[in-house]
């Protein structure tokens, strides 16, 4: 009960921000919330936001866990490109869908494993460790596609990107189900707390018997898997693998989603739901600008401005100011500090 309340309180800024953005879009584009059903499938701007936000939402799940360990994964965009290329290339060679997906996921796991080993065993700073794959990854993806956009026409693979399940586009179903699954596993087991412990104080956690290297590697593997799913979904959507552009700069959007979602870049307390809200905030901004008829050139500027505002609201300086205002009221029940940053 009290956990629910504190969760709501923790997510209040994100919920308010998302609400405000949706409200603003609705003001300029009243049809935003309307849904229509055709051929058993829902259509509408809201669905669009959820669907287009799928890659960043997926990435942000793994990114949240990696950031909670005091890490960062810059390679997810490149891993998306690699896994998309693997899936396309397997499909072109006539592999059945199961094999194709298995191959793509395995490659994601291997990429995560590589990052994780560099971080956990070679003790390389996460930002550099994952920079290596970020730089080399697109080269590897191009190696697989041989520099061209590799198109395929296996309808079952295309279904992953553009099909519908229970009336919803498949990518939405994938990220919602996957996020629920990961959250349940992390919070129902002790993984969540152990990951937070490692992120806050790795040495003390190791001394308490926490198997930090394994947890770190698991976090990066999860991030690799997320990138792999997102990569396959994007490739499936356009029925082709574009090594140059698939997932380009999405690592930055994912990191932004996590930060906007209230997980501190310094590691520790994390909230996957927060990150998903962050991802939706980012996508709502993108879609909103598009719908409201602003020239698309202004997209990035408005995005930057909104991000800066959200970050300033969350910054430690603003918090001291807020807590000063709050001091007149009874002190809130000790909410974990790391979670709010």
């Amino acid at each position, binding site marked *: 009960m009290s956990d629910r309340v504190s969760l709501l309180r923790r997510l209040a800024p994100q919920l308010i921000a998302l609400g405000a953005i949706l409200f603003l879009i609705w003001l300029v584009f009243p049809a935003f919330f309307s849904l229509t059903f055709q051929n058993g499938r829902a259509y509408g701007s809201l669905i669009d936001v959820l669907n287009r936000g799928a890659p960043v939402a997926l990435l942000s799940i793994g990114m949240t866990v990696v950031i909670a360990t005091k890490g*960062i994964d810059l390679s997810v965009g490149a891993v998306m490109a690699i896994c998309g290329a693997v899936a396309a290339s397997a499909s072109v060679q006539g592999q059945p869908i199961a094999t194709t997906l298995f191959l793509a996921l395995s490659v994601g796991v291997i990429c995560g494993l590589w990052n994780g080993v*560099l971080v956990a065993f*070679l*003790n*390389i*700073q996460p*930002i*550099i*460790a994952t*920079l*290596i*794959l*970020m*730089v*080399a*990854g*697109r*080269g*590897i993806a*191009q*190696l697989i596609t*041989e*520099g061209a956009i590799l198109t395929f026409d296996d309808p079952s693979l295309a279904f992953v990107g553009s099909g519908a399940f229970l009336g919803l586009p498949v990518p939405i179903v994938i990220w919602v189900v996957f996020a629920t699954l990961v959250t349940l596993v992390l919070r129902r087991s002790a993984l969540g707390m152990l990951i937070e412990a490692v992120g806050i104080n790795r040495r003390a956690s190791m001394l308490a018997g926490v198997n930090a290297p394994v947890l770190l590697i698991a976090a990066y593997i999860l991030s690799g898997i997320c990138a792999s799913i997102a990569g396959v979904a994007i490739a499936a959507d356009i029925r082709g693998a574009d*090594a140059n552009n698939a997932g380009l700069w999405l690592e*930055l959007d994912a*990191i*932004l989603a996590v*930060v906007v979602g209230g997980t501190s*870049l310094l590691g520790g307390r994390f909230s996957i739901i927060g990150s998903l809200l962050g991802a939706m905030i980012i996508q709502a901004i993108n879609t909103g600008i598009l719908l409201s008829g602003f020239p*698309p*050139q*202004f*997209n*990035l*500027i*408005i*995005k*930057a*401005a909104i*991000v*800066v505002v959200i*970050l*300033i609201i969350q*910054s*430690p*300086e*603003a918090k001291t100011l807020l807590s000063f205002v709050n001091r007149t009221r009874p002190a809130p029940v000790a909410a974990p500090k790391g979670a709010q940053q």
Partner: protein
Amino acid sequence: MSQRYLPLLATLAIFIIAYIASTFQFPPMFSTRVIGNLLTDNAFLGIAAVGMTFVILSGGIDLSIGSVIAFTSIFLAMILATTSIHPLLAFAIVLVMTTAFGALMGAIIHYLDMPAFIVTLAGMFLARGLAFVVSIDSIPIKHPFYETLQDWYLRLPGGGRFTLIGAAMIVTFLVCIVIAHRTRFGANVYALGGGVATAKLMGVDVARTTIAIYAVSGLLAGLSGIVYSIYTSAGYSLATVGVELDAIAAVVIGGTLLSGGVGFVAGTFIGIAIQGLIQTYITFDGTLSSWWTKILIGILLFSFVAMQKGILLFSKDRSQKAG
């Protein structure tokens, strides 16, 4: 003591060995023509990487430089196409803008106590967005002054050309080496990289230094943008995407620790040279695809990071034995 120089020496050794090896395979690679081109082609990247070196030495990072370069080039192209002001004045205006932009990011990083990574990421979006607002098309620059600048070069023995923009990069490196090692600002940059709290206790003006560091990075990104516009005779808002990554790679390959406090501006030059060498080799080979550049740079990054870890482990081991 000497272990501070070890990464730098290793970088230098790798460059020399790789260069000699490639000239054995392709003798024409040992020519002033190739060297001159290498300097010209990498001039804008080199200048930007110098700014990145300062930022990384201080323990920060600047993701905005690629966007700032693009903004500078499109802004120059637009202003020269639509007004009649002299390019030199345009240069001055744009440099003031990019320097102020960097200073603003530094101020946000310092006063709002936010991670440089996130602030400069927002800066990256903002600068790219501003570039889009100026124009989303590629605008050619056809000013006679630009032709003068492009035509100026020293003919090197052997037929190579030492161009103005190549010279601009060399001068930038020389000036910044002096700034890094012979000025109080330079010492303060290293001090911040060694520990912000301690530096503050020792009297370093952290606010001023942080703002100055990002301002320098903005200034050099602006200069790099000018050089880029001279190099391509055009401005394009989608240009130089990901240049920040190449710059970071050059800095790290040049032996600077990404955690800050340790490294050399001169190392970055060698880092740039190695990247240029890889590209030149791939061009000479003709059969290798260009994506090998990225893979090779990735491998190089990995070997350097691993080597630095190795040095650290070795020296720890040694001091423990001694203790």
